[in-house]
């Protein structure tokens, strides 16, 4: 390896902390540089997948740009396939100036402002924090305006703030109180571009007009746990619980829980997660990580489960609460993270885990298409391709929303999912049933009592099943009782 070809300037730029100057990391940094210079995408991605990821932010931002640009060719750039690290900072990407949407305000910009105002809370220096926020806002707004069909979600700002730190953190932190800092234009351009690609290829599912597709993704966590540890799964009744507890970790790729910067120190764990995602081109990674965390803190979870079960009226709240509690407790535990990442790297190659999910997802999901982990560095999407996928996914999501709304209507005006009994609809259901019985009985009037009873019994069972399974599948127990009593009542009447 021609180490002499590296400029010494670049190598000394990044201050590497003492313990990390250990040969391993330094060596890795050089290999990454080598791979970047050669634009060796397979090598870059392999380096990102292994321990320490891309080592530091200087190599990291170059590696992310190289990889992301090798995964999606935006029409405004030509870097795909021949992804060349040298072109990253060139100006052949002309800052969306040809874009008509640039000045049209996106409908979610108000929410963006509310969230940007509350971002980088762990940065103490007011000046630094303001600078970071300004960049954050510019980047988010530029992506949203360019793709008005995407919806902003609270938490997207957390993801983007990770990119802001990787691309401009060094510079902004170093600026201290320099009021006149002018950020390197090129660096901000490549930041925007990386966020744009990452958004389109990795975060698309989260930016639909509803939470349906994100929730599909969350359900995979339960599937993984079920496969890995069925006893634990059953113990926590995970089969009956909607995995909303994971929503913030997954939608923000842990950047809400793991503050990306604390007292001017970057969170390498968090950056390492992004390294792994980008270099495997896989949004399975966050789901695997979350599952591994749960499996890793299994004992604490079970302990808390036993301890708190008397406090809670229902298991859903209990499980939700203890998972939040235990995860928050262990989120700063380095050893837990180390183990989690090692397990995740291993599992990421386990195709059976990933293929297990396909049936649960919409076919345009990032997990099946652009960030499936299958493509690795093989396929470079064109902007046109991705726009087409996006269009279809949005369409499918709209269809799902409509279907869901209709289902809700059908489920009557009250909400059976709340497990509540509304007197009016109960009476209605009961009278419908009695009506149905009357019809059946009248149809079979001519038969003898015994046949009547037998056949009616069968039909009754059918109706019974239809009502319990189809109509009120979520709260059978509420409905079973009255139905059963009607049955008994009817039986005793017919026999007497």
């Amino acid at each position, binding site marked *: 390896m021609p180490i002499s070809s590296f400029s010494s300037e670049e190598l000394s730029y990044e201050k590497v902390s003492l313990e990390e100057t250990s040969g391993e990391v330094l060596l890795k940094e050089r290999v990454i540089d080598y791979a970047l210079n050669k634009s060796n995408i397979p090598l870059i991605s392999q380096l990102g997948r292994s321990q320490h990821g891309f080592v530091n932010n200087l190599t990291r931002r170059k590696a992310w740009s190289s990889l992301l640009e090798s995964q999606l060719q935006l029409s405004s750039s030509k870097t795909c396939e021949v992804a060349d690290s040298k072109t990253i900072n060139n100006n052949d990407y002309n800052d969306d100036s040809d874009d008509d949407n640039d000045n049209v305000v996106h409908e979610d910009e108000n929410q963006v402002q509310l969230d940007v105002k509350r971002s980088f809370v762990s940065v103490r220096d007011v000046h630094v924090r303001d600078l970071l926020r300004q960049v954050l806002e510019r980047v988010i707004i530029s992506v949203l305006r360019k793709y008005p069909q995407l919806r902003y979600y609270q938490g997207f700002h957390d993801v983007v703030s990770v990119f802001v730190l990787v691309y401009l953190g060094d510079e902004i932190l170093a600026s201290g109180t320099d009021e006149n800092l002018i950020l390197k234009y090129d660096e901000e351009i490549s930041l925007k571009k990386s966020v744009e690609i990452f958004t389109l290829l990795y975060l698309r599912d989260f930016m639909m007009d509803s*939470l349906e597709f994100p929730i599909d993704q969350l359900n995979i966590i339960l599937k993984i746990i079920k496969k890995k540890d069925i006893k634990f799964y059953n113990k926590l009744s995970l089969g009956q619980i909607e995995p*909303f507890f994971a929503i913030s970790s997954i939608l923000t790729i842990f950047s809400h829980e793991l503050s990306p910067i604390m007292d001017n120190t970057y969170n390498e764990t968090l950056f390492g997660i992004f390294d792994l995602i980008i270099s495997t081109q896989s949004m399975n990674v966050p789901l695997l990580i979350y599952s591994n965390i749960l499996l890793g803190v299994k004992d604490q979870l079970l302990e808390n489960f036993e301890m708190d079960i008397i406090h809670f009226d229902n298991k859903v709240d209990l499980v939700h609460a203890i998972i939040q509690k235990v995860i928050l407790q262990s989120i700063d535990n380095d050893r837990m993270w180390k183990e989690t990442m090692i397990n995740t790297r291993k599992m990421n190659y386990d195709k059976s885990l990933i293929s297990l999910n396909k049936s649960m997802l919409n076919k345009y999901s990032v997990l099946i298409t652009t960030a499936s982990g299958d493509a690795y560095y093989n396929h470079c999407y064109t902007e046109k391709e991705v726009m087409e996928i996006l269009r279809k996914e949005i369409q499918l999501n709209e269809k799902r929303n409509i279907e869901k709304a209709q289902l809700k209507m059908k489920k009557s005006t009250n909400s059976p999912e*709340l497990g509540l009994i509304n007197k009016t609809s109960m009476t209605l259901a009961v009278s419908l049933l009695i009506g149905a019985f009357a019809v059946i009985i009248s149809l079979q009037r001519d038969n003898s009592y015994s046949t009547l009873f037998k056949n009616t019994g069968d039909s009754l069972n059918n109706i019974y099943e239809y009502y319990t399974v189809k109509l009120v599948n979520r709260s059978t127990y509420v409905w079973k009782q009255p139905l059963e009593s009607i049955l008994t009542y009817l039986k005793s009447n017919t026999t007497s």
Partner: protein
Amino acid sequence: MLQFKLVLLGDSSVGKSSIVHRFVKDSFDEFRESTIGAAFLSQSIKLDEDDTVIKFEIWDTAGQERYKSLAPMYYRNANAALVVYDITASDSLSKAQSWVEELKNKVADDKLVICLVGNKLDLCQEDSGKRSVEISDAKQYADEQGLLFFEVSAKTGEKVNDVFKSIGESLYSYKKEELLSKSEQNGTNTHGQVDLQLQKPATSDPTSCCT
């Protein structure tokens, strides 16, 4: 100890998380992070009456419209709801009203205690021009709907504890009624007294869960 489930609802940035943190940690951060999904916290208070300890299991939800579909899972089985608006933003009151409506439609428990809370009172004390929801309007609405009502400041802490105390008192009195009527039915009530402690298995350590 009695335990109740309480949910916070309201538009983004009205100060739900700030109110919870004032109540639970007695602190205020100018720049609290936005809530994603929902956050769980718990806190106990002692009522003057009978020295009863009430523990709140608190679910603080995210205000952005897109997270609204998760709300039923948090207000399901709730004993109390704190519906928050920002007294310097009139839009947020209509949002609060739609939450009240949803709660009334979807939660069949007529014992659900709903408290309407106007937050950021400190801003209007500094500069009365900032107020965009009149206290009389909100109060009238709350009375019509049978809600508890407070104007508070998470920043200064003004009235925040009163909110939880008054919710706790309402819940306690409902609970007493309920138990009284139950024990009357059972004929076990001898002196009109109720042993509330029997109702929920208590632990010796009130902070054992999730604080």
